[in-house]
């Protein structure tokens, strides 16, 4: 799923301080599961804002809503009747949701309430880790189910580099936590699968046109078009 983390309340407050009616709009999709933009986080942020503005003696009306998703028109449509009564919206959806809401209600200022981070997994409560960069051309079948584009800090296709030590990536020293060397993981996995011979064959260049390097992407599937 798409992982996000809440923005600092101060940043959000500074964006909306000059408005009178603000809607905080959560999303019950990915950002709810990673506890950044669901109904609970909407309540927390709205309360923090109310306390802040009341302490400085400023009157701002803050409403709350949580949509099933913000990346689908049918759910965004639910705001159609009420949106005009707000001066601005803070969306706690991922970047896609924030933009889709903006597109739908073009006159309304919309501000992001979270930083959208990556496609990842819940490793344990409160720990989320990246697993996919959506490069558009999945090679997990070649690498024992471990993604070198995501897990190698240099997205090498012929790793590991000379900075791999005790299974840790060279950046571990710098980021203050142990980052597993993706190619060490691939090595261990291919060893288990009896496929170490793969290490002898240089890979082809990656075609990055299916990744962000090719520009904004779109999938059009005739088989599911109406």
């Amino acid at each position: 799923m798409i992982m996000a983390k809440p923005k600092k309340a101060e940043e959000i407050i500074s964006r909306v301080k000059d408005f009178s009616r603000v809607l905080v709009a959560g999303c019950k999709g990915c950002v709810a599961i990673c506890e950044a933009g669901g109904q609970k986080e909407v309540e927390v942020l709205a309360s923090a804002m109310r306390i802040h503005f009341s302490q400085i003696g400023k009157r701002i009306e803050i409403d709350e809503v949580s949509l099933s998703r913000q990346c689908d028109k049918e759910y965004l449509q639910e705001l159609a009747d009420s949106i005009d009564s707000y001066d601005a919206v803070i969306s706690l959806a991922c970047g896609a949701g924030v933009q889709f809401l903006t597109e739908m209600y073009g006159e309304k200022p919309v501000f992001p309430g979270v930083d959208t981070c990556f496609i990842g997994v819940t490793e344990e409560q409160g720990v989320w880790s990246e697993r996919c960069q959506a490069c558009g051309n999945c090679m997990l079948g070649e690498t024992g189910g471990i993604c070198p584009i995501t897990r190698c800090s240099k997205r090498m296709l012929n790793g590991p580099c000379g900075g791999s030590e005790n299974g840790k990536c060279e950046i571990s020293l710098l980021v203050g936590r142990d980052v597993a060397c993706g190619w060490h993981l691939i090595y261990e996995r291919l060893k288990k699968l009896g496929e170490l011979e793969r290490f002898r064959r240089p890979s082809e260049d990656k075609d990055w046109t299916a990744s962000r390097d090719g520009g904004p992407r779109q999938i059009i599937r005739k088989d599911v078009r109406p």
Partner: protein
Amino acid sequence: MSATTPSRLEKIIAAGHLAVTSECGPPRNGDPEVVSRKAELLRNHVDAINVTDNQTAVVRQCSLASCIRIKLLGLEPVLQMVTRDRNRIAIQSDLLGATSFGVHNILCLTGDHQRFGDHPTSANVFDMDSTRLIQTVRMMRDEGRLLGGHQMEEGRPQMFIGAAENPFADPFEIRVLRLAKKVAAGAQFIQTQCIYNMEKFKLWMKQVRDEGLHEKVAVLAGITPIKTVGMAKYMKNKVPGIDVPEAVIKRIAGVPKENQAEEGIKLCLEQIEELKEEEGIMGFHIMAIEWEEKVPEIVERAGLFPRPAVNGSE
């Protein structure tokens, strides 16, 4: 192995001499004298001079410009190129520019991650890695083709292709397989990470020989003299992929501070002597980091001076 490019380094190796290379780190400014001065120090004592490419991801005068400078001094540069900062368009463009100035050696590297350097918030490129860079140079040289398919009628790179290898990185078991991959990609010489753990290095060399790689690629042993015990400890603890055994630190720490530099030189001379006997070692890559002035002395005391002349080199 017989030489196929105008590279002097390749000719030295092909003639069966022990090669000697060293490196020169360009300055963090545009001063035209620094590289010239460092290169002149090495003029008579090495066969070729590597120029580092923004090493440890710190911005420095560019490797290609410095290589051209060295070439214009009548010396032989080795263009180090990392894939961290260039996509395949810039890589090939720089290779063609280097070719136009008669740069005949390249060392293909992926490069330290940019978070190590002085611009940790920058983006990286990594459009390809070192192995693919090796293949790219080989294709441009041997097939006269660019990655995009364009056929060069003239002006193909004529480069002796090198790569780095770190026998001390993990997982150790994969290191020789990965070297085999680089050789399959087209690497003709290898400059190793600096060696302090001789036991591990010899184990690695044995695996290199068992794979028959020593007959396909010239291994130049990486030698870095230790200047102080502080430097040894720093490399042990802070530089990823460098293996400094406790015994080495004890040895340097065991002499008074004013004698530590000489002890470091002695240690590297002993290493060179020992490695001369190691089957498959075709030369030495002496990296005296910010201590270039010591290289001539090391080369002389190691019995590697004078450097042999080879026919037909430029």
